[in-house]
C-alpha cells in the first residue's frame, strides 16, 4: 500500500513537472485522476451539481494557468483543494446574496413540494444540506475536508492556509451549529 502510494506520488510529480513544461496531455491526466475528489469537494461545498461542475472546471483551469507557481514537492491535492475552497467561498457569498433577494419565492417553492420530499430520509437529507448551506464558508470547508475527505487537522490547516487551532475551532463551531440546526435550534441567518 505504502509502496503504491509512493509510486503514485512519483508519477504525480512527473506529470506535474511535464505540465509545468507546457505538456497539456500530462495535465489532462492529472485532471482525470483528481476530478472525482475535486468535484466531490466542490459538490459538498456548494450543494449544487451544476455549480460543482463549473467550479471544478474553473479550479482546474486556474491550476493549469498557474501550474508553474506550484513548488516542487508541494501537494497538488492541497493546492487544488485550496483553490476550490476559495472559489467556493466566492460562490457561497454570491449565493447568499441571491438567496436573500429571492427568499420569498424560495419559500413558496418549498411549501409546494411534492410527496417525495416528505419522505423521512429525503427530509433529513434536505435538512442536512440546508444546514450546510447556512454554515459560513470557512466552517463548511473545515467540516467537509475533515469529516467527508478524512483529512487530518494538519492537512486541513495546510490546505486552507490557517493554523491547526483555527481548524479545531471552526470544526467545533460547525458541529455545534449543525447539531442545533438539525434539532430545530436557532437560525444563524
Amino acid at each position, binding site marked *: 500500500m505504502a509502496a503504491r502510494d509512493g509510486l503514485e506520488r512519483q508519477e504525480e510529480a512527473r506529470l506535474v513537472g511535464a505540465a509545468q513544461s507546457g505538456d497539456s496531455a500530462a495535465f489532462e491526466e492529472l485532471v482525470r485522476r483528481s476530478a472525482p475528489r475535486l*468535484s466531490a469537494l466542490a459538490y459538498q461545498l456548494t450543494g449544487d451539481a451544476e455549480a460543482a461542475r463549473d467550479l471544478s472546471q474553473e479550479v482546474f483551469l486556474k491550476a493549469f494557468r498557474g501550474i508553474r507557481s506550484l513548488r516542487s514537492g508541494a501537494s497538488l491535492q492541497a493546492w487544488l483543494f485550496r483553490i476550490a475552497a476559495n472559489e467556493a467561498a466566492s460562490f457561497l457569498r454570491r449565493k447568499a446574496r441571491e438567496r436573500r433577494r429571492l427568499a420569498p419565492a424560495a419559500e413558496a417553492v418549498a411549501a409546494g413540494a411534492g410527496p417525495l420530499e416528505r419522505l423521512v430520509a429525503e427530509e433529513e437529507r434536505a435538512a442536512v444540506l440546508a444546514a450546510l448551506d447556512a454554515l459560513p464558508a470557512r466552517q463548511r470547508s473545515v467540516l467537509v475536508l475533515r469529516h467527508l475527505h478524512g483529512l487530518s487537522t494538519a492537512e486541513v490547516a495546510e490546505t486552507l492556509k490557517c493554523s491547526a487551532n483555527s481548524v479545531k475551532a471552526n470544526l*467545533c463551531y460547525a458541529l455545534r451549529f*449543525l447539531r442545533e440546526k438539525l434539532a430545530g435550534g436557532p437560525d444563524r441567518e
Partner: protein
Amino acid sequence: MNECERFQAQLGEYLLGGLPMADRAAFERHAAQCPKCSKELTATRATLAALDRAGIGSAPAGVAEAVAAGVAAKLRGGVRPRVRLGWLSVAAAAACLAIAALGVWLTTRPPQPPAAAQLSNEQLDIEAQAVEAHARALLRQLDELRQEHEAVSRMMGGGPGPQKGDERTEGPAPPTGARRARS
C-alpha cells in the same frame, strides 16, 4: 477553562479520531459523569451520522467526467500556463527598459546650440536634475513591476506570503487544549 468547556472544545476531534489517547480517557471519563455533555456527545455523533447519510460523499454521477471533458476541451482550445517571471527576469527587463529609454532620450533630445559645448554650471544642474527625475521614474516603474509580480504569485497560491483571512475563525474565540491524533 472548566471540564465541560474542555469537553466541548475536544468533541469534534474526539468524534473524528483526532484526540490523542492520553486525552481520550479524560474525555470519556467526563462523558460518563456529566449528563449534559454526554447528551451533547450523542447528539453530535447523530449529526455526523446524518451528514454521512445525506449521500454527498461524492458528486452526482457524471459530474467528474463532465469536468474532465470540459477541461480537456478548453486545454485543446489553447489555454496555456502563465509564464512565471522570477525576480531576476523582472529586474533584467526593467534594466533593459531603462537603458533603452535613456538611449532614446539622448538621441531624440533637441540639438544643443553651439554654445552648449561650454555649459554653465546652472545648465549642467538642470540637465542633471532631468536625468535624475528620469531615473526616479524608471525606478518607480521597476518597483511597480516587482509589486505586480508578487501580487500575481500570491494570487496563484503557490507563492510565498500570507493570504487574506488566513487565521480567521468564524465564531467566538477558538478553544484551546484540543490536540489531534487519529484513533
